[in-house]
């Protein structure tokens, strides 16, 4: 006979209703789940069978959108990326709480707006300071594979915020930009097409920016995508120090192709790109 595929587990979930509760409390649910089920599957099971009032945030169910970050059995994890069996404590218990260091909106839903505001503050896009981003349509910025290697690791970030929760500095300093925004600042500074070093230094080179980091390294330990924000922040500090020492770095020096890349031909049947639907303005 095949081994049973059903597990009985107890979910201890942190609940908070902003209109009814003064502070959060724990509630337990006993549910049956299939082996291999994720923590997110278990939450769905609770909503479907026991308690439809339970709130949590998710979207893709495959570790891509970054919405389902939670404190699972005491550690920051993505609920959709974590199997229940991996996180059982005391036999068959799993605890689920909202991500700390952010206000709780309801139950397991944290308010990540401060994270996104800090992300926006570091200008997470190619900056050409005065130039149009795409001065001659049809031509391209040229970049070697080596230039790509300088930042590509940091492009895998899904903005889940787990790193902000793990960071001891952010735990006591709400003003600290935090691992995700700083890693993204470096991602663009290290991009040979970007010319926004000075703009970003004003934001990320401050007392609440990169210099607040003292390499506790927890951001890199918890990152579900292997982004290693701790590395990005140290490399960012190096850039700031080098620029302070006036060591010349060739930032924003990528060249543009003379025209459409030679030999690149549209495949038969592939339609032209549609016209822009928004007005094209130079990016500042």
């Amino acid at each position, binding site marked *: 006979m095949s081994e049973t595929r059903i597990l009985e587990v107890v979910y201890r979930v942190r609940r*908070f209703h*902003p*209109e009814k509760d003064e*502070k*959060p409390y724990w509630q337990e649910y006993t549910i049956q789940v299939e082996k291999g089920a994720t923590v997110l599957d278990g939450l769905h099971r609770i909503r479907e069978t026991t308690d439809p009032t339970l709130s949590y945030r998710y979207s893709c169910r495959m570790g891509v959108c970054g919405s389902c970050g939670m404190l699972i059995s005491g*550690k*920051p994890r993505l609920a959709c990326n974590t199997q229940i069996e991996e996180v059982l404590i005391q036999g068959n218990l799993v605890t689920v709480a*909202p*991500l*700390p*260091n*952010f*206000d*709780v*909106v309801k139950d397991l839903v*944290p*308010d990540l707006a401060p994270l996104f505001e800090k992300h926006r503050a570091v200008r997470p896009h190619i900056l050409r300071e005065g130039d149009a981003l795409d001065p001659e349509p049809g031509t391209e910025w040229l970049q070697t594979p080596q230039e790509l*290697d*300088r*930042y*590509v*690791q*940091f492009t*895998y970030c899904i903005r889940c915020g787990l790193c902000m*929760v*793990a*960071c*001891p500095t*952010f*735990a*006591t300093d*709400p003003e600290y930009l935090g691992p995700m925004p700083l890693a993204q600042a470096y991602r663009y500074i*290290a991009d040979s097409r970007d010319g926004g070093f000075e703009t970003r230094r004003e934001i990320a080179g401050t007392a609440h920016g990169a210099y607040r*980091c*003292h*390499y*506790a*390294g*927890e*951001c*890199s*330990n*918890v*990152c579900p*995508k*292997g*982004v*290693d924000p*701790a*590395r*990005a922040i*140290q*490399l960012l*500090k*190096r850039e700031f*120090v080098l620029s302070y020492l006036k060591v010349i770095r060739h930032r924003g020096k990528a060249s543009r192709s003379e025209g459409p890349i030679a030999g690149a031909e549209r495949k038969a049947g592939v339609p032209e790109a549609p016209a822009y639907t928004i007005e094209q303005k130079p990016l500042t």
Partner: protein
Amino acid sequence: MVERKRYDNRLGFWGWLGGGRWGFERYVYTLHRVTGLGLLGYFLLHILLTTSRAFGEPAWTAWMDRVSGPVFRYVFEPLVFAAFVIHGMNGIRLILVELGFAVGKPEDPVYPYRTSLNKQRPLLVAVMIAAGVVLAIGGVDFFGMGH
């Protein structure tokens, strides 16, 4: 927009002690901060003591008597020494790491992820061993034979 009640879920100092994956570097970070605060306390006391000299010799002697008992000699002084060694040795590692040394180059994230923490760990182990050796030598001097 309607303002709704939120619950402030910030970890505060608890976030220094635990959280994340409870990695080794977190505890070195906390140790660095605590030893830093200890050294700051020592410096304040030191300034207070030396300032007392300006108020004449009796004030100076009274202060010196207060800090030369066995508690200072066998508890606080060794603690200040230990804090100085740990903070200094770990500080050397932090200076190197924060200048981008020992953290490695960006690499493709391939599971199971190896991070810059793995790269700098030999340096961390080396400075901890060096700190241990200096502490042992200091310990012999503080508590060893001849005292």
